[in-house]
């Protein structure tokens, strides 16, 4: 048993860390956040050149053939730099679904790897909250294809994506597990209307209205009516990925806070010398370590039996939400007034951590699913 990275993995980790250090300091990040698209096309090109966009894809699709640990390493380092480029949306979610699709769809993987195609996975709806099975968007058979009607909300990267993968109901009623299908939709297709806006972590998202959007049966991703399992499996991978990002952020917040309390003086001493604060930073530290342990646990069990893997991922998501809240709260509190300013990076890290909590189901939701799986 060991928790060591391979030499190749260490190289990957170093290369991402170096990028963040050299090209993505807080000032650079603020500039990226101010861009209309919500990310920098130049950075995206760099990601492609460094081969990062190919990591999770199979070699037969032109990918690097990486495993869950490779993605995890990358995401953790991206987290430390609060990187806004849509790796999660385009590579992990959209790319993950393409990989599970038909040969015709897999051909787009090359463009993703090259950095020339942006994608988004549109699944959440106004009434669905975090329930993936709650799909009101309809796909009605129409000749050789389908006609899509409905609305998707808070779609990551949805405002700039070239292609979307959309969940829609092909049979059954709104909450049924069966009867959901996934479709590859051109973002500029007739009947697609997008309203882009920002979330507090700087991410550009969109609400997407689908009005009589026509797709063919070749656009079906995976089996008809069997979309839920595909969604769950890709979201499971994505949850580990954002769990890694969260661990990177939490470590960063913890280190920043400890550093600050060593230098900030009140009452003639560094505030870090107050035991009341020391204990709280110890709690932060333990929260980070416990979360990292569940991250490794979830990463290790991805190849194990499905039920165990699902529980491990949910446990990670719960911990990311709860331990992340503790770390964020304490980082704010221990910084005092300065922590309340937009100018300091602390608030930006906390906001991203909070958004990760909401992604794919918050701590409460995930804990309930976890309890249900306890059997």
């Amino acid at each position, binding site marked *: 048993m060991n928790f060591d990275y391979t030499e190749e993995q260490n190289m990957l980790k170093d290369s991402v860390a170096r990028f963040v250090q050299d090209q993505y300091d807080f000032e650079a990040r603020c500039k990226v956040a101010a861009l209309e698209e919500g990310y920098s096309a130049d950075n995206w090109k760099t990601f492609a050149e460094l081969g990062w966009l190919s990591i999770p894809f199979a070699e037969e699709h032109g990918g690097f053939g990486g495993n869950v640990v490779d993605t995890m390493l990358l995401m953790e380092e991206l987290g430390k730099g609060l990187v806004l480029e849509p790796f999660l949306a385009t590579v992990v979610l959209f790319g993950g679904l393409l990989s599970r699709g038909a040969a015709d769809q897999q051909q787009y993987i090359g463009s993703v790897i090259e950095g020339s195609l942006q994608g988004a996975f549109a699944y*959440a709806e*106004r*009434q669905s*909250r*975090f*329930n993936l099975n*709650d799909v009101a968007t309809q796909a009605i058979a129409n000749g050789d294809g389908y006609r899509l009607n409905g609305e998707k*909300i*808070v779609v990551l990267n949805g405002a700039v994506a070239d292609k979307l993968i959309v969940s829609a109901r092909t049979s059954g009623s*709104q*909450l049924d597990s069966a009867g959901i299908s996934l479709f590859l939709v051109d973002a500029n297709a007739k009947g697609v209307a997008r*309203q882009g*806006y*920002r*979330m*507090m*972590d700087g991410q550009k998202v969109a*609400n997407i209205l689908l009005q009589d959007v026509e797709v063919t049966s070749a656009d079906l991703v995976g089996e008809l009516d069997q979309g839920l399992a595909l969604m769950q499996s890709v979201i499971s991978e994505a949850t580990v990925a954002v769990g890694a990002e969260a661990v990177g952020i939490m470590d960063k917040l913890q280190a920043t806070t400890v550093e600050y309390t060593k230098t900030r*003086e*009140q*009452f*003639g001493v560094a*505030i870090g010398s*107050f035991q*009341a*604060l020391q204990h709280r930073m110890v709690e932060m530290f333990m929260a980070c370590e416990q979360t990292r342990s569940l991250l490794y646990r979830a990463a290790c069990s991805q190849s194990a039996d499905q039920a165990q893997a699902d529980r491990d991922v949910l446990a990670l998501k719960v911990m990311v939400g709860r331990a992340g*809240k503790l770390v964020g*709260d304490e980082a*704010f*509190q221990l910084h*005092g*007034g300065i*922590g*309340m*300013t*937009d*100018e300091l990076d602390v*608030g930006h890290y*906390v*906001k991203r951590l*909070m*958004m990760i909590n*909401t992604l794919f189901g*918050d701590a*409460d*939701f995930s*804990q*309930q699913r976890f309890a249900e799986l306890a059997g």
Partner: protein
Amino acid sequence: MDTTFSAEDLAFRDEVRAFLTEAYDDDLKARLADKATYKEAQIEWQRRVNAKGWAAPGWPAEYGGCSWSATQSFIYENERSAAGAPDMLPFGLKMVAPVIYTFGNDEQKQRFLPRILNSDDWWCQGYSEPGAGSDLASLKTRAEVDGDDYIVNGAKIWTSYAQYADWIFCLVRTDSSGKKQDGISFLLIDMKTPGIKVNPIIGIDNRHTLNEVEFNNVRVPKANLIGEQDKGWTYAKALLAHERTAIAGVAASKKELAEIREIAGRELSGGIALSSDPLFQKNLTDIEIELMALEYTELRVLAKAASGAHPGPESSLLKIKGTEIQQALQKLRLDVAGHYAGIQTEEAVGNEYADKARVDYMYGRAATVYGGSNEVQKNIIAKFVLGLK
């Protein structure tokens, strides 16, 4: 032991309700919500309340207070919050005015108190400095005597709403030879005086409420000194207890709790209302029970105050618990918003309460920091209530 309302109390409640219905109208609500009109709307609101004679219930009657019983104060706060009407801004009414009527001279009382009541002057609080936060007494902004004036140099920070302010009340150093608490003086400074510069600070809620205020050879008449020179720390300390009780916000939290419960009744999860989800119910009622307790803790403090006692270390308890509850409610509101939590846009995207959830959550982080951080409050309780040294 009895907390039932008397017939007079009930009549008073009706009077408050009738007043709020009339004075807090839709037009004012809209103007308060709009950045561009916020300041004048807040002033107008205070003037309407002042016309009724209720702007400063806690002041001594001779200066315009209401001599309300603890029950009446409780009723007023509850009704105001339930109506969604904003509190009066505390800087004039609850912070500087008690110092003026307790330690100021007659001329200062006549000059400032009526204008504070009617919101003719907008006040801000100039205490904190970059190097003096929790350790406020280490402040360095200095005032040197020059004939009939003081010359003030230095900088204040985190000054809420200084961008709107006509006046700032400041703690300044007039002597640095002895203990740091000695040698501090309490000065009232006209914000229009040459040499004052206000630099905005944008908060994590992406709004502008905070500022840095620079003083560059600012000339302040000696007539604006409160009480004695070098004795300002004693005056300021008396004032901090007022500020802390004001921060507890029990009535506002009750209103927020009710609102969240109502929103959760509309928000669906798995086709059923979130309000019937057991985990949500636990989260909500955990807070509710703490709040029920705090409501009575506050009543106990109020009853004691009504019998003439000054708010003491108990006010620290109200501040800690009150702000913890506020933050728990802000987190819950954000959680209820689901995917829309953290939305940051002026565009209408179909969730009217989520943007407020983000702003409140972010601004709310400060409540455990300002007014003396919660850690400092705990130190106060440990020392003065529990006798721990």
